[in-house]
């Protein structure tokens, strides 16, 4: 009994000493910084930083080969923490989110063919240009949903996909996946977006979608932060000017979305909201017209007066 106990204890003791020695002798050297960095990584392994996963990014950071602001899911908070660990100053960056710049659901831009095949946008786009009338619009097959590691993208009832800005970390995976380049990175705090991706001229756009941007530039008149290139209005998110809420109202196609007035879910999926907005926009437009007409009448009156004067002068000259 005693022998057995002492032998067991002895074996245990020897093993413990061996292990302790082994731990010191064969210790794997780990960079202290790397260890700390690994701890604060978000752990999504989304690849948004351009390195193979979170550990790859941490290693690159420790080696000084990566920017502390490169992690989209971590955002400025993580950048600050990384800065603390690495002992460097980090400039705060604007948080960006993905935005699906298409509002042409099945109701607005109907299907032009019956697609039979795999649920993948790239594959569908390669077959007769996809089933949607608008070849620049969202087909809603959801390739972006598959690549999103954060479950931030979902399908809407009317055949589109939408990014939930609260869940989106800005990793840009969806942006790379979309074969039609519909998903754009926008500042999270931006309120006004042009929800159209079609650069074609008015006639072509109207033929395929009832809410497509025709490039009419009416919105440009309302706000300097909107620019029109290739007959497509684009919000210049870098411009400091606040976009007036009349920009959305001025759009004859209802292609501009203003998050200060409606939630995007309502805007895209609730027909009642759409109707209400349409009415508001129409009212505003009518008023604007009236205002313009009045202004014109005034100007016209002035002009008339001036013309009369001129005519009178002319008569005089003729006489002379």
């Amino acid at each position, binding site marked *: 009994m005693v022998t057995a106990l002492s032998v067991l204890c002895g074996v245990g003791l020897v093993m413990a000493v061996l292990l302790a020695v082994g731990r010191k002798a064969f210790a794997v050297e780990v960079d202290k910084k790397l260890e700390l960095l690994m701890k604060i990584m978000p752990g999504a392994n989304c690849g948004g930083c351009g390195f193979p996963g979170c550990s790859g990014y941490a290693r690159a950071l420790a080696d000084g080969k990566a920017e502390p602001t490169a992690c989209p899911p971590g955002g400025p908070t993580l950048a600050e923490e990384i800065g603390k660990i690495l002992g460097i100053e980090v400039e705060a960056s604007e948080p960006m989110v993905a935005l699906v710049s298409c509002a042409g659901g099945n109701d607005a831009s109907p299907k*032009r*063919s*019956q697609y*039979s*095949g*795999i649920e*993948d946008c*790239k*594959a569908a786009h*390669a*077959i*007769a*240009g*996809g*089933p949607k009338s608008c*070849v620049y619009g969202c087909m809603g097959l959801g390739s972006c949903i*598959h*690549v999103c590691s954060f479950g931030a993208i979902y399908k809407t009832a009317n055949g589109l996909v939408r990014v939930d800005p609260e869940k989106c970390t800005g990793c840009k995976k969806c942006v790379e996946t979309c074969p039609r380049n519909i998903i754009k990175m926008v500042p999270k705090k931006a309120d006004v977006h042009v929800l159209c991706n079609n650069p074609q001229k008015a006639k072509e756009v109207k033929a395929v979608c009832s809410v497509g941007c025709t490039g009419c530039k009416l919105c440009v008149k309302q706000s300097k932060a909107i620019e029109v290139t290739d007959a497509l209005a684009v919000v210049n998110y870098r411009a400091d000017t606040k976009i007036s809420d009349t920009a959305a109202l001025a759009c004859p196609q209802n292609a501009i979305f203003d998050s200060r007035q409606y939630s995007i879910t309502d805007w895209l999926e609730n027909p009642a909201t759409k109707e209400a907005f349409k009415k508001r926009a129409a009212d505003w437009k009518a008023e604007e017209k009236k205002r313009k007409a009045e202004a014109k009448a005034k100007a016209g009156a002035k002009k008339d007066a001036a013309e009369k004067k001129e005519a009178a002068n002319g008569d005089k000259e003729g006489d002379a």
Partner: protein
Amino acid sequence: MTVLTFKGGIHPKYNKDNTASKPITSLAAPKEIVIPLSQHIGAPARACVEKGDAVKRGQVIGEPGGFVSVPIHSSVSGEVKAVEPRLGAMGVAVPCVVIENDEQNEAVEFERLADWKKVSPDTLKDKINAAGIVGMGGATFPTHVKLSPPNNKPIDTVILNGAECEPYLTADHRVMLEHAEHVVEGLQIIQKILNAKTGIIGIEENKPDAVSAMEKACEGTDIKVVRLEIKYPQGGEKQLIDAVLKKEVPSGGLPMDVGVVVQNVGTAKAVRDAVVDGIPLIERVVTVTGSAVAKPGNFMVSIGTPVSVVLEHCEVDLEKAGKLILGGPMMGFAQYSAEPPVAKGTSGILVFEEKDVEVTHPLPCIRCGRCLDACPMRLVPADIAAYSDKRMYDKADANDALDCMECGSCAHQCPSQIPLVQKIRLAKSEILAAKRKKG
């Protein structure tokens, strides 16, 4: 006579009886012709005419955009109405030259060549290049490039592909019957250019009339006519070489790696017409058939004729149609509209009634192995498709996705109706994109 074949492949319903006996008839060019500037593999042609220009039949309207490119010619005389994007066969708008046909049919002077045997191979090649000839079986690869193998790859055999294994299509069949001498002469020209001793014409044995017509035309020459088993894809380049010469083109390689060049019989005729008569490729034989076609047939159609015009002539009621395909049923492209024009590679126009086509609802793979039995490249389509589903494109590459030639045999056989070709094609494009990225 022995019947030659390859391993794998399928036996689809051929459905050629409707048009096989219909002689080629010419279709008058319509009032408006839309000629795409890219009807071939390679760089698109550059338009060299402008709106308002008067053009003649056969006049160059697009200059080649590089070595792997060909010029584009006007198929009618008239006035250029626009150079603008129009709907092409892939469902998206492509740059086109739109010409209003003045119906005068005024042609440029074609440069005839009485005795091509006395001319140097390079001159012949230039003539082929100038005529804008591409592979007319559907691949549309510029012919002059195929006829310019590097010096270290001597060509000893030219095989003319008269298999026409695509169901429904009979364009090549009719060309062999009606222009047998021209096809043989075309083959001789190609042989001269390549300095190839052997010329072989392979024809599937369901076209005995074509076999005897070609045999008759080959009398007095060294050219052999061989019969091939009725099997799809017997006309696939690598399968044809395997069947005729018992040679396997190495994976990732080209027929020239085994000293062979394969040309379609239609291409051979076009080569002959270009060299001897000086006529560029401005019209081609198109088979129009399918269950929704009241008057099917084989037609000589001017390049640029909108499909809708051809269908009108064949009395197709598009309201009853369920599917419109440019090309054959195995490798052709489904269309959502009849607006695209007939191009150099359009070998057929198929229209099926709504009741004959359906939106499929694939079931899970049951690992029955029909796809791999059918695959002429001896791949495992089910595995590649499964990796494509899971977006594991590197694994798909390791399973030789890039060897797939998209013949469609696997999907034709799949009892679960899985769109295998589409999945593999997606994997292929992703693999190639990743390789390009790496550089």
